[in-house]
């Protein structure tokens, strides 16, 4: 048992120091009926590295990795290239194996990177302040909705028809548990603007997404104005952080809260997690924000340093009156984000965004040029919806046989909304001209 340093002699001498006969003494408070003396049945015994590695490698081999062929899946998680440096940085023991920076004298490394992360997220979203991360985009979105209700003291949340349905579900769940009402607008490929018409004097916030789940990019400035006229907030959501290098960011549209997924920068696909929720808002709302915040200060020698601050919002102090119950967040994923962002720089991010957009344009032109295939998304960044002449599930299965992972069938996300012939398709800087040609050739064969 390679992770346990105590020897039998150590154990015996320690028991003697303590004055106990055996480990059983320590469990004497456990009700007799619940004490297990033998090891739990039905599970294997310990194994060496080699055996464990064999087992895990066998499981991994049953999955098709995104890099193993043409790959066009998006809809909330994106296949981007992560520089080798990023993975090296997040594997540094001092970052990987440390705790939440509760003792700032010996956590300035983590704290300074969080301060830099917050500055980057604020700039990327064009918002005043950002927190030190949430679990992911969907929970950030849900937290934004309940925060808006606290700020406005209102109980109605309106959700666009283009909000990622998983985000909408997570938001509805948290809102309803807190006695808020969620109005879901009809699912629509290009319907973010409808939010402007539905906001009323009881609305706490409207939640719009750009690019939305169908890839449509929308300037939500008009929505922001309508919301503000009625005393409501605009929550601006995104699932593709790279897009903000090129498209209008939440702050430029007048958003009060920006909530989104940061996976695209620095973080791998990881089958859905761990990811990193980005959360930013206007400065005047900061005391209603959920999650940790890192702030600048000085130490006893007057030297610049950083601490977790405004903690009275949080559960460990405010308990039942806290703004959220979040404690552990996505610290290491935030480090991956910030170090990748640092490697890119502002100009690099913009170029990366342009490359994504160009790959998607080329893909749309190529697929849209096939007889019977229609590109449904009017304006997009790096993903869009297509309609195929036959059932999307069958199309994807046949593409799979041809070695192409062709996207997400919309009916998987919207089982009740008659999207049986719609596929959500994404391209990134990883998508090559050959990948696009392979997709087009296979699709042409199928239809």
């Amino acid at each position, binding site marked *: 048992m390679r992770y346990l340093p105590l020897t039998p002699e150590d154990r015996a001498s320690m028991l003697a120091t303590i004055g106990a006969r055996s480990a059983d003494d320590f469990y004497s408070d456990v009700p007799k009926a619940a004490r297990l003396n033998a090891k739990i049945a039905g599970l294997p015994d310990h194994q060496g590295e080699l055996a464990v590695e064999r087992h895990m490698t066998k499981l991994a081999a049953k999955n098709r990795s995104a890099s193993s062929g043409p790959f066009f899946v998006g809809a909330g998680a994106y296949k981007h290239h992560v520089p080798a440096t990023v993975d090296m940085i997040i594997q540094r023991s001092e*970052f990987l194996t440390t705790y939440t920076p509760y003792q700032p004298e010996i956590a300035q490394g983590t704290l300074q990177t969080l301060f830099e992360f917050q500055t980057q997220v604020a700039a990327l979203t064009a918002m005043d302040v950002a927190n030190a991360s949430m679990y992911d985009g969907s929970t950030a979105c849900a937290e934004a909705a309940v925060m808006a209700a606290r700020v406005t003291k209102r109980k109605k949340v309106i959700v666009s028809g283009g909000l990622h349905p998983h985000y909408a579900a997570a938001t509805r769940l948290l809102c309803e548990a807190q006695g808020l009402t969620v109005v879901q607008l009809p699912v629509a490929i290009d319907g973010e603007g409808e939010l402007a018409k539905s906001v009323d004097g009881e609305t706490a916030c409207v939640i719009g997404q750009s690019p939305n789940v169908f890839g449509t990019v929308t300037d939500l400035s008009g929505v922001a104005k309508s919301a503000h006229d009625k005393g409501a907030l605009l929550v601006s959501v995104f699932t593709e952080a790279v897009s903000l290098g090129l498209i209008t960011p939440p702050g430029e549209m007048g958003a009060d809260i920006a909530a989104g997924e940061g996976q695209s920068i620095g973080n791998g696909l990881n089958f859905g997690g761990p990811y990193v929720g980005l959360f930013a808002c206007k400065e005047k709302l900061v005391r209603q924000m959920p999650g940790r915040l890192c702030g600048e200060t000085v130490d006893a020698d007057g030297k610049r340093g950083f601490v977790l601050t405004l903690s009275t919002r949080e559960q460990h102090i405010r308990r039942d009156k806290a703004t959220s119950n979040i404690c552990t967040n996505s610290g290491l994923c935030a480090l991956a984000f910030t170090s990748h962002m640092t490697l890119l720089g502002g100009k*690099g991010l913009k170029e990366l965004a342009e490359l994504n957009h160009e790959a998607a344009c080329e893909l749309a032109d190529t697929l849209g040029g096939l007889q019977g295939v229609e590109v449904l998304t009017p304006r997009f960044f790096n993903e869009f919806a297509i309609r195929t002449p036959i059932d999307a599930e069958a199309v994807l299965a046949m593409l799979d046989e041809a070695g192409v992972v062709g996207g997400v069938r919309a009916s998987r996300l919207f089982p009740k909304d008659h999207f049986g012939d719609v596929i959500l398709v994404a391209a990134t800087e990883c998508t090559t001209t050959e990948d696009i040609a392979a997709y087009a050739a296979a699709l042409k064969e199928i239809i």
Partner: protein
Amino acid sequence: MGMNTQGRPTVPASAFTSTFETVSGSRGLLQHEDLLFEIGTPETSGVDLPKPKGTKNRLGGVKRKVDTGLPGLSEPQAVRHYMRLSQRNYAIDLGLFPLGSCTMKHNPRLNEKMARLPGFADIHPLQPQATVQGALELIDELATWLKTLTGMPSVAMSPKAGAHGELCGMLAIRQALIARGEGESRKRVLVPESAHGTNPATAVQCGFVVDEIRADARGRVDMEDLKSKLARTDDIAGIMLTNPNTCGLFETDIKNIADLIHKAGGYFYCDGANFNAIVGRVRPGDLGIDAMHINLHKTFSTPHGGGGPGSGPTVFSGALAPYAPVPFVKKDEDGLFRLVEHVDGDASESFGRMVAFHGQMGMFVRALTYMLSHGADGLKQVAEDAVLNANYVQARLKHVMTPAFDGFCMHEALFSDAFTADGIETIDIAKALIDEGYHPMTMYFPLVVHGAMLIEPTETESKAELDRFCDALESIARRAAQGDETLKSAPYLAPAKRLDETRAARKPVLKWTAAEVERLAAE
């Protein structure tokens, strides 16, 4: 003789001990490092990208007006930036990290290697399920381990961290009450005053009202207070109880508590943050628990990463299992694994979806790797060694510090500040530990013990490490008892001195701006 007097001196001159400022701001191996925004430029990049052609545009004019202006660094600069910052952090890989209730144990590197296999790290949550059968099988296998170790019939894998698992458990309780037609009438949740702050915060997030119960003189739930809070039962939704509790003690009356809550028509949520003390020795399912989250980043060794990511799978009793969230993995009769992603069919009573995808896969891989490494026999030894180490620390220090409660502890030893002289506080002891090369213990928690110091060594510390730690803490404790004022300014040897938290909170500076730098310079 031909005497050659050339060469370097081989004995150091008498030491120059006073502190002095260096020109560079570095102090030997501790390199000075400014903020990214002071050393980078927006044009610099550590990534080589092909030039965009700029010929195609389907944005429809929805373009960013003002560039981010974010600075970049070349790769060597970036590597140094983060390496230099890393040197200002303490870490479990450097030494004992005795934060109580945090279970800072060794993070095996095999876990990291396995999590980076492309078959796990490079798969998309929405790619066709036929192409991710191994991932779904892994989730199912991990679920089996968790169900077996806890003796519970069902587990929700999607919660993202411990507090998210609490939310999962309490939402299931809410849904069960709604299904009984008592969703509006049963709103009261009992929470011990010693509970972690996430417990009351979670209950309120789910629309419940918190009713605090007291701890007794033994550090357990005060049964008389509990009974008085159950004088009225028709509004009881349930109880949230940590076991082993935040005082590091097993709740002796846990079966009674479960019975009383169930008789009152409520459900029993157990906070499983301290599962490391009992894994393989006690199954929560044998204690009458209805829901419990498990922190994979505590008991099952996935790294804390400076504050996350965590993972909080939540096990359920039969009574709550039908209400568990989507998505979950189901094994069909043909041997294929399938995700149930919507509230219908197999999940018609589910309370819904908490999160975008299927949970913290990266943490699942690490946790299962750890479980397979330890096996059923090893995990039992984990709990026993964790408890042995904590009791050893308690035994070694009880003569100089004040144990909060009599008797053996579980996986963590709790002391009050009663032994300190006037003017010396818990924080002074904690900061002095930093100078000795240790991360401090959890301080001022739980709230029920004055000046609490909660020490959790975990099972991955050797006896020699524990002895070194106890020697250091024993000496600090003696100084505290004697009123040694030098403790008030500790740490002396850390990368930073004590930080001004008041200033940070009064005038929050939450991001870098050029204006803020000028303001500071003017001061």
